[in-house]
Each structure stands twice: as structure tokens, then as C-alpha cells.
């Protein structure tokens, strides 16, 4: 269960769509553990997608437990081959990303989302997520399509350096 290095932009795996996981096998279960371990290794990390750790498969982990912006909270979970079944009520908020450590940006995303996928035990899950958990899920699903938050920022003046100003 290693903690994997997180790839940074412009690594090709981060900006390329990933392939389906399909049937859950030992490799998929190991990937789920690596996602959770790597996510937990960074205290501020609320989600991580497989391509961010160099695995071009449609898998992600999310955990918004204890986050002040969270409303729904399903704890720490991993989904394979996620599908967004519904997404409504857009809201704009500031996002950052482990793969884009120098910048943050304002992104509009749906805040009421139904996502389906396969869990690491091979069971189909359908989750209703909202607010910050919905944002985290959609941010991770974007990674599986080779997109980062910079691809969705609300405009040229909605990207911000993360470095502390003097």
C-alpha cells in the first residue's frame, strides 16, 4: 500500500483521458488502496484521481470528512468507472489541485450530483452528493477525462497564484 508520487501538470497522463477499469481485480483493489493512502498522506487533499498517480484508469478517491464546506459526506470512498447520472444547481467556488500546486481558480460546477460507479468490492454504488462533496467528485471525474480545473475556470481573472504575497 505505497504512497505514490503525485504527477504535476503538464504530465501527459494528467491531460489524457483514462481507460475504464472494468471488472474489479487485484490490481484495481491495489489501485484503490494506493489512492486512499496517497490522498491521506496530504492533510488538505480531499480527492485524488488515478491518472494523478500515473495510472490511466477511471478511478478516484474522495473524502470530505470534516471539511467546513461539506454538507453531504460519504466518508472516504473509491469509485471505478463513475458516471454522472444527474448534475444541477451550479455554484462557483475556489479550487486547487495536487497536480497544479501553484494556482487556484474559480470554477462553476453543479452542486447537486448523482454519481454511480463500482466500489472496490465490485458492487455498484449510486451516491447523492452535494455542495463540496459534489465539487470534489466532479473535479475527480474531470481528471478521468484529462481535464484539470484550469480547463473550467470562469475567466482570465479567476486564476490565482497560490504563493503567499509579500
Amino acid at each position: 500500500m505505497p504512497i505514490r508520487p503525485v504527477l504535476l501538470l503538464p504530465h501527459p497522463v494528467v491531460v489524457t483521458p483514462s481507460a475504464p477499469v472494468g471488472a474489479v481485480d487485484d490490481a484495481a483493489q491495489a489501485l484503490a488502496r494506493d489512492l486512499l493512502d496517497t490522498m491521506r498522506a496530504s492533510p488538505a487533499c480531499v480527492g485524488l484521481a488515478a491518472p494523478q498517480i500515473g495510472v490511466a484508469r477511471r478511478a478516484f478517491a474522495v473524502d470530505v470528512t470534516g471539511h467546513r464546506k461539506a454538507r453531504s459526506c460519504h466518508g472516504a470512498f473509491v469509485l471505478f468507472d463513475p458516471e454522472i447520472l444527474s448534475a444541477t444547481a451550479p455554484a462557483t467556488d475556489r479550487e486547487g489541485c495536487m497536480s497544479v500546486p501553484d494556482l487556484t481558480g474559480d470554477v462553476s460546477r453543479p452542486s447537486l450530483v448523482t454519481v454511480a460507479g463500482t466500489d472496490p468490492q465490485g458492487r455498484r454504488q449510486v451516491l447523492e452528493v452535494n455542495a463540496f462533496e459534489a465539487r470534489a467528485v466532479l473535479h475527480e471525474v474531470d481528471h478521468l477525462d484529462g481535464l484539470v480545473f484550469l480547463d473550467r475556470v470562469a475567466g482570465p481573472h479567476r486564476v490565482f497564484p497560490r504563493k503567499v504575497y509579500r
Partner: protein
Amino acid sequence: MPRYALSAVGADRPGIVAGVSGALVDLQGNLEDSTMTILQGHFAILLVVSMPPEVTARSLESALAPVAEEFGLVLSVRPLADEQATPAQAAPGASPWTIAVHGADRVGIVHGVTAAVAEVGGNVVDLGTHLVGSDQAPVYVMTLRVTLPEQPDPAAAVALVRTAAEALGVHCTVHPDEADTL
């Protein structure tokens, strides 16, 4: 009221905006549109200011000289001719789009993408860039707001812009600006 374009750039330090705007207030000038930001540690000001009729470009420059001296600013003042201005809104038959570009830094990203926008008859209305990453692996991030002609086919225009970006080895996403009126 005559209007002037004013630009000022200098190493960032507290008090620059207060100093420049104070000199304008002393002349009863009105700061209209402006953009001010930090570019690689330099504070950059670009603004349009309207001044009372008796103020000239030269007297405005003179009034700003002490502030420029105090803060080490490179300053420029130019009179603006109103009839040359075009409204910021999309022209008829053009629609607003946002383009996001990012990838390994190299010479020519801004030119390559904006040349493609110009070639399809589009117009850049807002643009911001950030050079991030490390010295060994610099990353260029550019976000543009553009208008693209709706005829003959905005999808073809978008495809040309994306092709230009891909030729530079950078990632490019283009999506229509959606503004909901509430």
C-alpha cells in the same frame, strides 16, 4: 471630459495604488476602467482616467512624477480618442467563449493561439497568463475570453484554435461562456 490611458509598472510594494490614485484625485480626475496586478513581482497598473478639461497629458504626467519617483514606477500617459473605442460586448454575429491553455512553457504559445483566433475572425477581449512550475519544468497557463464569429461555423473556428494549440504541444479547452441572467 478628456480621457487618458495611464500605465505604470514598478517593483511591488505597499502604497503604489494609493499614491497613483491620490495624484489623480488631487487633479479631480475620475478613475474609470482599470486593471492592476502583480506580474513576476512587479506591480502593473493599466487604467483609463477622465480628467477636467484643463488637464493635459503633460500636466497629468507632471502631477504623477513625484509618485513615480517615490515608488520607482515606469509611467506612461496617452490621450485617448473616444471615437476609436469599440464596446467590450460581443459584436453582432459573434459569441463569447473561454479558452484555457496549459502546458510546458515555450516561446510562442500566446502568439500561436491568438493568431489562430485572429485567423478565424475572432477577437481577444480578456487574457491572463501565469508562468508556474519549477525552473527545470516551467508550466505556462493562459486563459482567454474571446469572441468567435457564429458564421459560418463556430465549431470549425474552435477546432482551428485547438489545432494551433496542439501544434505547440499544449493542452487546450474551449467552451462557450454561459451567462445566466437572474
